[in-house]
């Protein structure tokens, strides 16, 4: 098992109060597996993703849990070891907003080169530049040789995203954490990016934790899907299982919300209510205020993730 997260809890401390963004989350990612992490904003999915590499904002604390990468516990590692052995080497990240992901005062070349020189110590300057150019060309950046010496603001959003992918894959990571990489991009660009991503994944055999709120993208890319709500993992299943027979009311509602081209409907479905504020979480099952099936027990106790139907399908609900 490549990555195992056990009972992870992350708390945010702010002036307005303290709250758990992630509570008791457990998941597994196998080698080369593409796992989609789905949830609305505020579900804790990004926090979960960034916790794996321990790059959380200053006011976040990992309160409990283990994160085992190939058996080694990331939480117990020192920052130094983490930086040297894990970040960029075993695990890489690509983020949502390409506008802000690249340092604006350095050329693309400089930025790629710095990573290259870190990991390709024996190669010379020209060799590294050649490699950089070829990597960029592979992801579809035209005229890479000339453009590599430009600054990030000369690049479009999609291109910046591609540059980021190149940088993330230079080191041949075992796991890529993709935090909403295509949100905010045009649909056509999104499709291209996903293609490139899939290519890279196939080429390097990288496992991916694809974090997004867009179920549609998940249905294209993922092997396994994890659904999160308000800090809890509420359902885990294979892609086909999830879309064919979603068990948790939240998952069902999410799937219902997807606009369908096949049926003629006037209104888009929505889920009533809104995602709770982490400082003010409901008792018991966090989804109960918005769940039409909610019973008394849902208000009192928190359901735990347990197996249902098949061994790969888990759900956290009393009513299934």
């Amino acid at each position: 098992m490549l990555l195992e997260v056990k009972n992870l809890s992350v708390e945010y401390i702010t002036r307005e109060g303290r709250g758990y963004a992630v509570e008791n989350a457990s998941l597994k990612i196998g080698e080369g597996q593409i796992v989609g992490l789905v949830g609305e904003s505020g579900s804790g999915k990004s926090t979960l993703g960034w916790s794996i590499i321990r790059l959380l904002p200053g006011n976040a604390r990992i309160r409990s849990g283990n994160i085992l990468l190939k058996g080694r516990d990331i939480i117990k590692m020192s920052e130094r070891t983490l930086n040297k052995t894990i970040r960029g080497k075993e695990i890489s990240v690509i983020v949502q907003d390409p506008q802000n992901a690249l340092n604006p005062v350095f050329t693309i070349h400089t930025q790629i080169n710095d990573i290259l020189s870190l990991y390709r110590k024996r190669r010379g300057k020209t060799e590294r530049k050649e490699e950089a150019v070829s990597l960029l060309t592979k992801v579809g950046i035209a005229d890479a040789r000339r453009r590599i010496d430009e600054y990030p603001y000369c690049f479009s959003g999609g291109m910046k995203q591609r540059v980021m992918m190149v940088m993330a894959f230079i080191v041949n990571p075992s796991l890529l954490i993709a935090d909403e990489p295509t949100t905010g991009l045009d649909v056509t660009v999104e499709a291209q990016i996903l293609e490139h991503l899939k290519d890279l994944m196939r080429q390097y055999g990288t496992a991916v934790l694809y974090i997004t709120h867009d179920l549609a993208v998940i249905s294209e890319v993922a092997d396994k899907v994890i659904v999160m709500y308000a800090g809890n993992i509420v359902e885990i299943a294979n892609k086909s299982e999830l879309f064919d027979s979603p068990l948790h009311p939240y998952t069902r509602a999410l799937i219902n919300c997807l606009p369908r081209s096949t049926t003629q409907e006037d209104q888009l479905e929505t889920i009533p209510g809104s995602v709770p504020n982490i400082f003010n979480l409901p008792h018991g099952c966090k989804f109960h205020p918005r769940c039409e099936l909610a019973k008394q027990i849902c208000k009192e106790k928190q359901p735990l993730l347990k197996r249902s139907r098949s061994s790969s399908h888990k759900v956290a609900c009393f009513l299934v």
Partner: protein
Amino acid sequence: MIFIFFLLNALPGDPVTAMAGPRATPEMRKAIEEKFHLNEPVPIQLVYFIKNVFQGDLGRSIWDGRPVLELIGNALPNTAILALSSLFLAIIIGIPLGAVSAIHHNTFTDFLIMGLSFLVVSIPDFVSALLLLLFLSVTLNLFPVSGLGSGILDQIHHLILPAAALSLPWIGYVARVVRGTMLDVLSTPYIKMEKSFGLPLIFIWGKYALRNAISPAIATLGVMMGKLLGGAVLIEIIFTRPGLGRLVAESVATRNIPVIQGTVLVTATLFILSNLVADISYMFVDPRIRYER
């Protein structure tokens, strides 16, 4: 800003006319009148005349008749050295301090550095000059009390105290500015990304973060340079260094009009120039601005 350049030429004429009037003694008045043709009806003509004269000749000092240009020429390098060394100190000490403070945000180091910065910024430069002079020169006899010194090493020896006093408040100021910008930079997404790629932290701080943090600091440094060139007055007097500031102060005290005119013109020009230089270097550091221009 360049527009102000031309303005400069017009201005010194103004106070001079006022000065030549009520302040000068009768003999002086006559001399001045003759020299500058003040008996001409319109004072504006005076300005034009002086403007032409400025083609190279800045007039002569009233007291000893030496050309003002020469006086300034002698004084300027001293001031420049002082100013540059202070600038140097401010950069070398201030920027790293600010960066360290930001990196160790909210720890004891941070508070210590910021506390010291506040202290130093609140003490006027000549006060710290006096105190330094008192303790290090007079009492402990570590540094010479006045003058420029001869020979490179001795000159540096003489330079240390005044440069330190002059730069102290700026060090504090720069440290605070850099701390502010660094804090901003350190919380940006791209720094986070660079961390995620496994780049060593010191590298990230030194190269990436600093580069981003410096650009606002450059503006400050430009202003600093300008102020230094004009403002070293008190320090120069305290340490008896013959420089531009002291020249201005002395000439004001003695009503040496041509000298005042000349020095004010030069100082103001340098001031504007250094602001311009700061603007331009801003352009180089942050490539985004290049294209906006």
